[in-house]
């Protein structure tokens, strides 16, 4: 008996995707330094303890790493069983936050549970991606279809729609934007017919226009949104943030002012610098070289996610991988674009970099899932209804 390798796929030891691991590791390292730098002089946050937030961030990474390992090691069957639970938990979280959540910066996004604060919307992003991927994969596999039909699309939209509406009610426009783009990407990769995609795109545009013109979005909300084009529209709020972010980044020049030496960073000119505007620290202290490197590293992460999706064994893996790539990609673009003044100011974190437990946990779980998909790719492990190739030829 000989092992006949399948004619397309080579039998390779998949192991972990090391490019992804190294890239994520470097991003986490840079992110840690940036969080430390931006918080060490901010007395109102740290109350005199320079490393308070550094330590908290490291704890977040540690917990996230544990979650990463857990997701990574989960057997694929358990993935398919746990995913709906994660989805339901997120929806419950989103409902709870609307009822008993804390309002920060005008939106009800946080649940405070015994000293810890959780942002359900972050987990919801992961849950939506997994949920949509799962639904689509199950339906296609069980009916042995290739094409995605209307019911599939509607189901996927329903899966995405429920959390989306709850997020919109907070209101968290930034997460909505990212989620919308992600959903669109997932639908596209899942094989949704082009006319559906066009229709959905047009519907999205129409809905946002209506929201503005019919006064669902109030004037100040629109001003705040558009302030990145003209800071004078909201000079104390979003206009100020976007101006200060650009000044800080511009101040960095080619090589930056050096870690812990950014003048605008140390003087607290950019608000929310350890969370949403963390990129400005990179811009000012590490310069074009360092910030560009950070962008490149994130790009590597996304590229690997897409490669993992491409090389995935099954539809679930492909769609989930692509979904995670969309999520990271659009979120990074939104966040960095906001710091650079080409995207509106919204409260969206920079994945794997911003300080924040929920975002870090969800992101590392997503990375874990990517590794999980990668481990099962190359046909080394059976999916539900496929017999191992290796058995052929007896």
């Amino acid at each position: 008996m000989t092992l006949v390798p399948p004619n397309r796929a080579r039998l390779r030891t998949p192991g972990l995707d090391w490019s992804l691991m190294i890239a994520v590791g470097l991003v986490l390292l840079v992110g840690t330094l940036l969080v430390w730098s931006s918080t060490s002089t901010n007395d109102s946050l740290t109350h005199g303890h320079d490393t308070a937030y550094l330590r908290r961030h490291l704890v977040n990474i540690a917990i996230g790493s544990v979650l990463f390992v857990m997701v990574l090691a989960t057997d694929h069957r358990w993935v398919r069983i746990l995913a709906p639970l994660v989805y339901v938990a997120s929806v419950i979280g989103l409902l709870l936050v609307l009822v008993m959540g804390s309002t920060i910066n005008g939106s009800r996004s946080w649940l405070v549970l015994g000293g810890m604060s959780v942002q359900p919307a972050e987990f919801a992003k992961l849950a939506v991606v997994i949920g949509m991927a799962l639904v689509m994969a199950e339906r296609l596999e069980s009916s042995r279809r290739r094409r995605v039909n209307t019911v599939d699309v509607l189901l996927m939209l329903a899966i995405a729609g429920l959390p989306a509406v709850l997020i919109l009610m907070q209101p968290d426009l930034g997460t909505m934007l990212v989620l919308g783009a992600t959903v669109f990407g997932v639908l596209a990769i899942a094989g949704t017919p082009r006319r559906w995609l066009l229709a959905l795109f047009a519907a999205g545009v129409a809905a946002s226009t209506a929201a503005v013109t019919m006064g669902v979005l109030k004037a100040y909300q629109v001003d705040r949104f558009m302030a990145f084009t003209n800071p004078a529209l909201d000079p104390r709020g979003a206009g100020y943030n976007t101006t200060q972010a650009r000044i800080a980044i511009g101040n960095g020049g080619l090589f930056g002012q050096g870690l812990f030496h950014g003048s605008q960073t140390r003087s607290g000119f950019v608000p929310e610098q350890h969370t949403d505007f963390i990129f400005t620290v990179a811009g000012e202290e590490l310069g074009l070289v360092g910030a560009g490197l950070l962008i490149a590293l994130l790009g590597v992460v996304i590229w690997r996610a897409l490669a993992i999706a491409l090389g995935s064994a099954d539809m679930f893996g492909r769609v989930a991988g692509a979904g995670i790539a969309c999520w990271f990609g659009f979120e990074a673009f939104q966040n960095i674009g906001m710091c650079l003044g080409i995207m509106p100011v919204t409260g969206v974190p920079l994945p794997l970099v911003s300080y924040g437990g929920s975002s870090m946990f969800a992101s590392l779980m997503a990375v874990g899932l990517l590794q999980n998909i990668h481990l099962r790719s190359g046909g080394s492990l059976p999916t539900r209804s496929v017999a191992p190739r290796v058995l052929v030829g007896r």
Partner: protein
Amino acid sequence: MAAVLIRPHLGQRSRWRLFVLQVLMLSLFLTLLTRLWYIQILSGEAYQAQAADQSVRELVVQPARGLIVDDMGRPLVANRTSWVVSLDRTLFHKLGEAERDQLLHRVARAVKEPYRKVRARSLICGEPGSTQGTCWNGSPYQPVPIAEDVSQKVAVTILEQSEDFPAVLAEAQSVRAYPAPFGINAAHVLGYLSPITEGELKAAQKDDDRSVNGASDVGRAGLEKHYDAWLRGMPGYKRVTVDSMGRVLGDDSEVAASPGDTLVTSIDARVQSVAEKSLHQAMTTARKTYDPVTHRNYVADSGAVVVMDAHNGRVVAMSSQPTYDPKQWVGGISSKQLKRLYSAKADNPLLFRATQGQFAPGSTWKPLMAATALSNGFAENTLLDCSSGVQVGNRWFKNYESASYGPITFAEALQISCDSFFYRVGLKFWSQFGRDPRNVNARDPLVSGAKGFGMGSQTGIDIPGESSGRIADRHWKLSYWRAMKDYYCKVDEKGSATGFLRVFAHEFCLEGNLYRQGDAVNFSIGQGDTLVTPVQLARAYAALSNGGTLYEPRVAKAVVSPTGEVVKKVPPKVQGRVKAKKAALRYVDNALKGTPRVGTLAWKFIDFPLDKVRIRGKTGSAEVYGKQSTSWVATYTKDYVVVMMVTQAGTGSGTSGPYVRKIWESLYGVKGMDVKPKRAVIPGTTPPAGLPVFASDGSILPPKGTVSR
């Protein structure tokens, strides 16, 4: 058994779309990189400038102003420390509204000022609720002073209990102090300071003048104003880094302030003290004296005294009444104080009668007329009838000043101050050259002679705001008539005026432009429309003393740097020579020697050692329409000129005579009939030639060779 491998067809479609997604992600990230490059490299400099701009503040360090000292080096104007409580507006505005009010109340209680006042001072000019005068006109980044001259205890409390006083600073600043040696006031000579105005600041900025800033005080009168550029020094700058709250993080760099230069003056504090006291006593005595002409006491509402060095025109003492206290302006003058200064009751204390007040000179004019007459054809042995009056046309010009003495000489006419003698001189010249009253260009030796003594134009003294006096010559008469003709003709037409005004208006309307005999007559005795300032008269008498040189009076002697080096000398400046001939001047000089012996001053100079201290003098009682007469005494020796004037105080010798004597006694160290130069207020009598000595430890000693008392 063959297992059926059904590998789900993972779709070309989704592969293709993954590929599209990859391209999309790549382009998004390239966009980010491009934009990053644009901001950091292309626009990098602009953003760096903005970053520097908002994180560095420049605080002005005000310089210490230069001192003003007298001829012996005694400080007349100095500086002292004042604890100033100020408000950091950036931090103040981070507090809530209630907290802000609470803080201001607490500060007001601590510095013992009304809350209203503290609040008014905390506002920047232009803010709603701010009022001119109390609002802060300086940079909004500079702490705003809300209370001055706070006790050290309060200042230390504020510094130590900074949690109770957020955004409040207490620091020591230097402000003007007036040591007032020998109790002098000298307010008009010294001047005062007040904050720079918006217009002045703009003009300075246009000229790129960095010696002033929004919080500067500038000189407004007297020496403080004239020599402000020397006195003010150069501000220093402290650059500090601030955080987004405006809190100071650390010092960046500092340019030290350089203190202003010291002004050495020719004023002598002791002479000034004697002069001020004498003037004050002359006025208070006059107010207690009954005037038989107007049947009430003399009003004596204002006065001036000038003591000048006859050799070079330097001012040794100068005083004016009513006066004010320059300390009012230290730390800002209140609107109540200002109102008081400008009230009718106060009678304009800010006006410097010595240089700005214009008065009819009366008989003090006569020596100038005599010198002019003797230089223009009159012989020394001329005899003219000192009658009780002279008939001119249809008008009788009475001899007010003296009894009728028959034919007398120029010398006697000066000593007894005979009006009719000088009427005849005036008439003679008018007949000789100016018979045609319409001829504006007729020769008038008396007028040109007066102009030659510097009358009718500014003396050029280094005190701002000097008046030029007035010579009412033919040209002036014509232009005045042109200006006022319509008004008086209307009065005449209406016919509602009564008495003097009615007659005057009618005459003026018809013939106001004509220079008639009456005008010449009035001119000869220093009446009519002739006006002089006391310093003009003093300067003219100095010319009589020194042989005919007209000097520009000077109060300042030199400008000295804080380390004692002479930066600028202020030498005596010759303006010209009088037109009168030397022989005429000698004659008049000799004649005036007689005034205190046998003339109008004699009764006030009894038992004065006139042989040793040869005082020449002339009295005057100038008539003023509707008021009591102005009292003048103009005296001089070869060293000094002393002129005293009191308005509405009767005769010169009666009112000012005894007090002018007091000044001469102190100038020469006279006691009884004994003259001891050592006893004089300036030891050795004559003013010191050199400058005070500025020692390295900061003390100022009298000039070499003098002993200050």
